[in-house]
């Protein structure tokens, strides 16, 4: 059976494959060369702008002593997590054993991480899903009082997910509350973790 991956990745791969031949590329780049006089005129202006940006950036950084405020979760990711939590689909793997779940989810390009601080919760199972267009896993946990907690995991790519707090650096996770669901996001062992819990 052909290997299935998220649509966005497959389309990207398909559309980014064709390239111009070298001769055409060189000819077009030659045409697009900026006129020398313009470049020379801009150079001192660009240098001044770069210096001003550096000063502004340093001043802005000093206004934010708390590093967690610099972390932002992409809005679409929060939306995906909430929708998958509220419209819970059937788990593809049913098990209370994390090692069994890990070995069953062969399509993932990362190893699911048993998250810290979840000991009062019991693993129920897991399923494949996507997060921001990449293959991920949704894990279902249950507490003693029957509360459902879902956790999403996927390999961390800063260019896709932006800067997220790292558990290993003792950075506090980002919390978002929307539509009665509390979403908590952090990175642990190179894996993006997004925990969703309905607020009582």
């Amino acid at each position, binding site marked *: 059976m*052909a*290997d*299935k*991956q*998220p*649509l*966005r990745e*497959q*389309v*990207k*791969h*398909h*559309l*980014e494959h*064709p*390239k*111009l031949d070298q001769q*055409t*590329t060189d000819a*077009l*780049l030659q*045409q*697009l060369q*900026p006129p020398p006089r313009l470049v020379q005129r801009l150079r001192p202006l660009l240098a001044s702008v770069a210096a001003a940006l550096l000063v502004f950036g340093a001043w802005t950084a000093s206004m934010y002593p708390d590093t967690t405020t610099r972390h932002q979760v992409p809005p*679409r990711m929060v*939306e*995906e997590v909430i*929708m998958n939590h509220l419209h819970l689909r059937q788990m593809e793997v049913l098990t209370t054993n994390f090692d069994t779940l890990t070995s069953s989810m062969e399509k993932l390009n990362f190893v699911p991480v048993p998250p810290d601080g979840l000991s009062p919760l019991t693993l129920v199972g897991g399923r*494949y*899903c*996507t997060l*921001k*267009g990449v*293959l991920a896993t949704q894990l279902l946990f249950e507490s003693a009082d029957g509360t459902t907690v879902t956790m999403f995991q996927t390999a961390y790519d800063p260019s896709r997910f932006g800067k997220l707090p790292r558990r290993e650096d003792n950075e506090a996770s980002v919390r978002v509350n929307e539509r009665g669901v509390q979403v908590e996001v952090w990175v642990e062992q190179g894996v993006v973790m997004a925990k969703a819990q309905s607020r009582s």
Partner: protein
Amino acid sequence: MTFDAAKLNRLYQFCLALTGHPANAQDVLQSAIERYLQQRKNVDEPMAYIRQTARHLFYDQLRRQRCLRFDTLTDPDLYEGVEQQLDAWLIDQQSVAHIYTLLTPQERESLFLWAVEGMTAQEIADQLGEARGTILSRLHRIRQRLNALDSDVSEGQHHGR
């Protein structure tokens, strides 16, 4: 902005997404770049300008050939959630190549902006100067084609093809 091979290829890939044909894509790209060079001093965002010029040139071509199909007006609320549905869709490479041959130029263009440029429906609408509902409708038609393809494959497997 300095152009390099990567940016040129990204523009070429957009033109190819529009035209569906390598030779036509190169022609459209060349013409768009020539127009840009004439207006260069007044252009703030060259990549967006060249993309926009390329699409105008291509759709003018289609109008002259009377090949342009217009989207019907739709209520954007009808297709809310279609972006999330496409985000969650799993597919193999062969099916992507096949689906792509079935799409209209407008659908190919929207799919390119959604997948390669990572734009939302609103951002695509802003980029193309169209209503968000129109973009959602296009994405919905793409999803319908994906559904139909899945049904064909399942039917084939069921009949032991």
